[in-house]
């Protein structure tokens, strides 16, 4: 049995979706953890969900890293347990230094909410360990700052080390410009850390876990996360 923590900052708004998705997909209990908590003892994995933590004031994720819960979260990452971020959670993990790169505003300068297709690039992360590289998945994005940037040398290292785990692609699996919803470099939609236990993506698997929502591809990511906690 695995215990999942779902962090809640003031302004987080996808905690219910993540909680529901984890329980529906894995059958394991998940618990909401308020950002003022000082401990994540007993949890096997933590998910930082989407939303607008602290209003995204200053910049997306910029204030959340000062919340008390970030200290145990960083310890959790250092201990090798799974830490994953979705959307705003990705931005928070970047701001906390747990994941590389930074997010600029979308190239359109507008928020974008629509379905995208993702190509799995590497199965060496808690979000992809049950997936085959090259497989494609469909799920919604919903963000205004998902335009992934990193210095050329950082980007080169990420690619060489297979730390890019998802890329935006078209229906044929090509990482084309037309398939890129936000202008991300190299169509990057998700990355992992060097150790392979911290990972995040901008799209929302927590909005694609039942046919009623238009797709179930998000389930594969939560199944991977579950498998990772058991390994």
């Amino acid at each position, binding site marked *: 049995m695995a215990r999942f923590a779902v962090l809640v900052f*003031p*302004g987080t*708004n*996808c905690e*219910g*979706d993540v909680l*529901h*998705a984890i329980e529906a997909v894995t059958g394991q209990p998940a618990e909401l953890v308020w950002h003022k908590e000082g401990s994540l003892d007993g949890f096997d994995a933590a998910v930082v969900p*989407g*939303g*607008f933590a*602290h*209003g*995204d*004031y200053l910049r997306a994720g910029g204030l959340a890293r000062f919340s008390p819960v970030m200290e145990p979260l960083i310890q959790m990452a250092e201990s090798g347990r799974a830490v994953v971020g979705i959307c705003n959670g990705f931005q928070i993990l970047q701001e906390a230094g747990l994941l590389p790169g930074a997010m600029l505003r979308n190239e359109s300068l*507008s*928020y*974008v*909410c*629509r*379905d995208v297709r993702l190509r799995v690039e590497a199965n060496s992360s808690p979000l992809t360990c049950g997936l085959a590289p090259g497989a494609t998945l*469909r799920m*919604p994005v*919903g963000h*205004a700052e998902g335009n992934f940037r990193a210095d050329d040398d950082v980007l080169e290292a990420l690619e060489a080390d297979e730390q890019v785990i998802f890329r935006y692609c078209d229906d044929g699996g090509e990482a084309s410009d037309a398939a890129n919803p936000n202008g991300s470099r190299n169509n990057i939609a998700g990355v992992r850390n060097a150790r392979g236990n911290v990972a995040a993506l901008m799209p*929302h698997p*927590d*909005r694609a*876990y*039942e046919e*009623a*929502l*238009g797709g179930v591809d998000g389930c594969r990511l939560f199944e991977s996360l579950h498998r990772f906690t058991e390994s």
Partner: protein
Amino acid sequence: MSGPATLEAALASGLSSEEFRQIGALLGRPPNPTELGMFSAMWSEHCSYKSSRRHLARFPTESPRVIEGPGENAGAVDIGHGLAAVFKVESHNHPTFIEPFQGAATGVGGILRDIFTMGARPVALMNSLRFGPLSVPKNRALFTGAVAGIANYGNSMGIPTVGGEVFFEDCYSLNPLVNAFALGIAPADRIFRARAEAPGSPVWCVGSKTGRDGIHGASMASAAFDEEAEAKRPTVQVGDPFLEKLLMEACLELMQGDALIAVQDMGAAGLTCSTSEVASRGGAGVEIDLDRVAQRETGMNAYEIMLSESQERMLLVVRSGREAEVTRIFDKWDLDAAPIGSVSGDGLLRVRHQGQVAAEVPCRALTDDAPAFDRPAARPSWWPSPEVTPADLPEPTDWNAVVRGLAGSPELASRRFVYEQYDHMVRSDTVVRPGGDAGVVRIKGKELGIAMTLDGNGRYTARDPRRGGALAVAEACRNLAAVGATPVGATNCLNFGNPERPEIMWEFTEAIAGMTEALQALGVPITGGNVSFYNETEGANIFPTPVVGVVGVLEDSTRRIPQHFAAAGDLLFLAGPEGGDALGASAFLKERHGRTDGRPPKPDLDAEVRLGAFLRAPGAAGLAASARDLSEGGLAAAAVESLFAPDGSAIGAELQVECAGRLEGPLFGEGPARALLSVRPGDAEALAGLASREGVPLTEVGAVGGDALRIRVNGSPTVSLDLDGLADVFRNSLGRLALA
């Protein structure tokens, strides 16, 4: 108290000399300047509905499902399973013209407070927008600014925007419309009301601090604009969706217990309105001390504190002895919360400031005693608008160009540019996304789904307000029927010009008459809404624009009719009465010929009732592969919309039209009570049986399939547009126009 206010001050604040006299009579003395400001706001059209109250009383407001009708912060209807849907639509027109981003954003903030004030968790938003033509740069700025503002607020709150509408007409250039709708879900037996009872109970002000922003917003929204409108920018509030998100969570957490007697949000006229309304509804009084109100700025006087429209504030009436619960929960969310006074038994709103009584007014004088006018109404000489027939129009030669042009027109092109800026998937309950006839959200853990739509057609109402009012209601109900939902309640936002003009009052009363006829025929009660008068700038009035929001129930949200063509080989049927060829005030006339004249189609309410019964009949959801209501753009527009699913996929179709005379009417006519259905060939007979049982004529009009939209007229190929090209025009034109 300071000395008495003068008649000149009253006139300058928007009150009439007769109203100033009435205030003196109610108080038994002249008001002081603070009291005058309070009356000016509360007796404004925006707060008092003084020109509309008598007419709104005609709406049907009762049904076995209605839990809360007009008069509270929002209406509530029973949706079964022990749940209530709490919903309302409200305008934020004037602020949006002055500052589109903040004006539209705070419209969303305001309507959301109305919902969670009732103890309901908001689960869906919609909005209805009107702007001037996008060929004008200022209109593009207003449009894109308002959409970005709505997106910013709704997205931050984590509430999906699942539907709405946007249209463009010259008359909205100097007076855009932003109507925001919100819907929440509450336990049916735990609806909170805004009635102060139990004298001695503490009154709290929670949420944001009070500043000098938005002072006199209510009066601003009750006056026509002139070229000085830009100078009114300081009367527009600035929204903070993050703070409202915290306020919502704190209020809903507090409402889980029973520490509260009443909750009232602070919108127009701020503390004045919230204290006097909560007290007069409960037959009580309120005494407050402004020195205890958390303030954002120093040196604010009583007038400013009482009339500030700082956003994200709530007034709570707390049960005596339960204050600690309020403090604990608001501390958790890092929000200001302070007792500022208490409920009294004397019916007075008594305001203390710096040790003095700054105002002392009977609560009812501000609310129930506000004037109610029966303003003169006069039918304009041009009425009725002459009919337009194809014989009046040049006959097109290139029908491909006509259909392509309409598919990419501001009137009919996909609204993707707008709704993709709104988070419509958060909460993971959106089962029908924007781009269809109605949005649908499910209730987790139940089969139940809630469908909703927001509709209005200013062109129709301008040319025939009675027909326009009825058609707005009919279209909204038809949109719900198209997904198989049963309408259970309605809200409305009545956007009109200057009520002091008799022809505007005629439009208003006629539109209400038409809406009432349709609501009665379709069995849908009004549970609340909003009136926005004085949509007049530099002497020009907008088209009268009643917007109707209807909420429906889907007992099983998985058993609904899809909105897009499903499979090649499916047959196409037009359901509904024949002869729907009317072109008056149509989208075709506007976009092809630049005309907004003519008479809109005659409503056919019996046929609407039958169409609804057919589409909701048990089994219909399994038999119809797709359904689309026919409205703006007629059959051709319904076909184009059905080709392109929101996920980007597309499938072609061929329409076969039999037509003895001109083609415009059969293709683009906007006759009511019709829908375009696609059906698997093997199910066609069973579906026809259902239709015939409900008395709905079905006409076969073609088939799904192919890589183009083709139209054959009397057997001969007339239109052939390849899907890729048409998809680009339909899906991307609005964005191109907006960002030009």
